[in-house]
């Protein structure tokens, strides 16, 4: 398994957006002028409301969308110069509600790309079973069809399928948006653990700021037209929101994320905007 | 193509259209049989279909009848009734009615099913009686679908009416079978073209009727 890139922060970009823009014939401008770098082995989250152009950006990476201007580089090479089919087989793609093939069993779904690449059925299935272990799916589910799984299980299959060709890059398009909140929390924690193990370069799309703060090493908050309102770590964004848009988006303006210390007893209790206790203040340097 | 020319010449000759066995009478008979059969089928099947559609009772049976009718060979029905009822008009008309009923029935019950249940619910909630719900909401809104059922019944009947001549009835089939017996391919062709013209004319009329009856709100 691919194990490189244990050093996030090292300025080696795997995906580079260079002044990309996308406008449609009807005049809508989904992306105005967007530049960003996705560093190797880390998770970059694009977060914004629906229609802000984040999905368009993601789909430029595997050439599902062609930019009107600008370029997208993958490992320093312009994706526009690469054959789309070969390119896509080398990039893992997880979409909302899985996008699994309803007429293929779980095992064949996971093995889709290796089978397309001409790997023998036996090897592809063997690898698919290992991936089922990796994503925490019982091997007994291998012979089921996607509709015979729960929403959360389908998402795990979706992730396993994306990992099947062992790609260095994973694109995740709101993968957990369609599952219920409890399962979503489970899946988010699971993905964090998995990412700690695999260290893929992940570009993750969400409209949920909590999810972005949880998963993102780097977070880009997008305003309509994919204009970057702020980029940084979660800590930086919460500590120094760049403008009212960001303050509003992350919930600081309405006071949702503001905690008040209440100093009774030997520990500092933190209260939320409504005065409910949500936790205690830890010692400095104790986090993570 | 010489045959086609001969058929068209036959059709263009005014003499062939007059007289007791002229094409004019045959077209008229063909149309008359078809309209009569569809009218009788409508009188029987529309109330039943509305009842099924409104109460949602007996739907399985109605669907079954419609499906089984597709497998029923029309020629078999025409000849069977012809043998049982004797030569004349009764047998072919009865056969045509039997063939028209499933399409009309399907049109009638699905016309009510096509109406948005929320609209029906709203009508009931605003205090309409069941009969008012049916007559003021379901039937008018479902009218285009019902006409669609009548349209396919008419098409089916015009096609099958050609076989009526086989058991002694009139209509354009008489010309066709005359041609077959006397080895006059041009006559068969002329008769066929007339039946096709009738079928397409019926389609055009019913399409216009359907458009006319579509509520203004539902038009695109």
């Amino acid at each position, binding site marked *: 398994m691919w194990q490189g890139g244990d050093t996030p922060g090292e300025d080696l970009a795997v995906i580079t957006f260079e002044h990309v823009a996308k406008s449609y014939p009807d005049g809508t401008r989904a992306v105005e002028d967007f530049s960003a770098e996705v560093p190797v082995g880390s998770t970059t989250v694009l977060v914004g409301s629906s229609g802000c152009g984040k999905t368009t950006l993601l789909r430029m990476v595997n050439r*599902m969308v062609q930019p009107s201007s600008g370029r997208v580089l993958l490992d320093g090479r312009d994706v526009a110069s690469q054959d789309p*089919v070969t390119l*896509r*087989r080398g990039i893992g*793609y997880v*979409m*909302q*509600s*899985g*996008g*699994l*093939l*309803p*007429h*293929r*069993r779980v095992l064949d779904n996971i093995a*889709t*790309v290796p089978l*397309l690449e001409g790997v023998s059925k036996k090897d592809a299935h063997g690898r698919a079973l290992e991936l089922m272990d990796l994503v925490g*799916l019982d091997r007994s*589910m291998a012979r089921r*069809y996607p*509709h*015979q*799984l729960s929403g*959360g*299980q389908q998402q795990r299959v979706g992730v396993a399928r994306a990992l099947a060709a062992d790609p260095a890059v994973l694109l995740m398009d709101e993968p957990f948006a369609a*599952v219920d909140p409890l399962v979503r929390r*489970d*899946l988010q924690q699971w993905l964090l653990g998995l990412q700690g193990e695999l260290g893929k370069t992940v570009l993750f799309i969400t409209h949920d700021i909590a999810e972005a703060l949880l998963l993102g090493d780097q977070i880009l908050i997008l305003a309509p037209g994919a204009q970057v309102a702020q980029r940084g770590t979660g800590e930086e964004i919460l500590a120094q929101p760049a403008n009212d848009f960001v303050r509003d988006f992350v919930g600081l303006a309405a006071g949702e994320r503001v905690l008040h210390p209440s100093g009774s007893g030997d520990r500092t209790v933190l209260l939320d905007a409504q005065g409910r206790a949500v936790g205690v203040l830890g010692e400095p340097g104790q986090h993570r | 193509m010489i*045959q*086609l020319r001969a058929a068209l010449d036959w059709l263009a000759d005014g003499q062939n259209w007059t007289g007791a066995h002229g094409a004019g009478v045959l077209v008229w008979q063909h149309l008359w049989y078809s309209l009569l059969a569809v009218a009788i089928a409508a009188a029987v099947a529309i109330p039943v279909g509305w009842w099924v559609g409104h109460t949602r009772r007996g739907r399985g049976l109605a669907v079954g009848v419609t499906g089984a009718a*597709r*497998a*029923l*060979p*029309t*020629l*078999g029905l*025409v*000849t*069977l009734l012809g043998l*049982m009822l004797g030569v004349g008009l009764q047998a072919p008309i009865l056969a045509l009615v039997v063939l028209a009923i499933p399409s009309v029935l399907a049109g009638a019950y699905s016309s009510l099913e096509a109406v948005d249940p929320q609209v029906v619910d709203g009508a009931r909630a605003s205090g309409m009686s069941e009969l008012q719900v049916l007559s003021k909401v379901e039937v008018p809104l479902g009218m285009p679908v019902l006409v669609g059922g009548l349209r396919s019944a008419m*098409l089916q009947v015009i*096609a099958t009416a*050609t*076989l009526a001549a*086989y058991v002694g009835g009139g209509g354009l*089939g008489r010309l066709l*079978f005359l041609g*077959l017996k006397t080895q006059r*391919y041009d006559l*068969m*062709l002329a*008769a*066929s073209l007339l*039946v*096709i013209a009738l*079928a*397409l004319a019926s389609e055009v009329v019913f399409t216009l009727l359907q458009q006319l009856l579509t509520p203004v709100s539902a038009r695109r």
Partner: protein
Amino acid sequence: MSWTLDNLDVIGQLLGRHLLLSLPPIVLSLLLAIPLAWVATRVRVLRAMLVGGSALLYAIPSLPLFVILPLVLGTGIRSQWNIIVALTLYGVALMLPATVDALAQVNPRVLDAAQAMGYPSLSRFLAVELPLAGPTMLAGLRVVAVSTVSLVTVGAVLGVPSLGSLFTDGFQRGITEEIVVGLVLTMLLALVLDLLIAHLGRLLLPWSRPLRRGAVGQGAP
């Protein structure tokens, strides 16, 4: 039953001929509808033309079509080819719109996912789009099978032998039993072919079977 028992060999022959006239149109309508539907779903103008043409074709009554085809095909009026070609045309007129609808119903997200995984466009159509359209197409094919078997009988009035010959012969000789046997066998044949196609469909499209109760959502979320 005496007529039936005396004529079992004739009935068997006619049944065989009926089957030989029915099967080619059923199979051909499926095979022709697929590439036509592929074109129709990709070229907007052709879609309107093909679907509109199907409706027009379907409006032409069968007996007149049997009569006209010799003009185009150069066959004799009693040739079985008129029947086979005419019923294939009807079959395509039914299957083409059904296939276009079936392809339109395929979840675009699944197609999108297939493309994102690197399916080339033709194999995406054959391996993903077409199988997913399968259940709806199958329903269309069952209608084609039943109406084809029924329409074959009409050819008997022109002298093309099939189970329909039992109707014409029975009527001319005044044997009610013969007509009833023809009716029953024609409907039985339609039923058998219908069930056969449905069964074949379940074998070929196993995922479309209703799922077992309680199979959903066991184990980890």
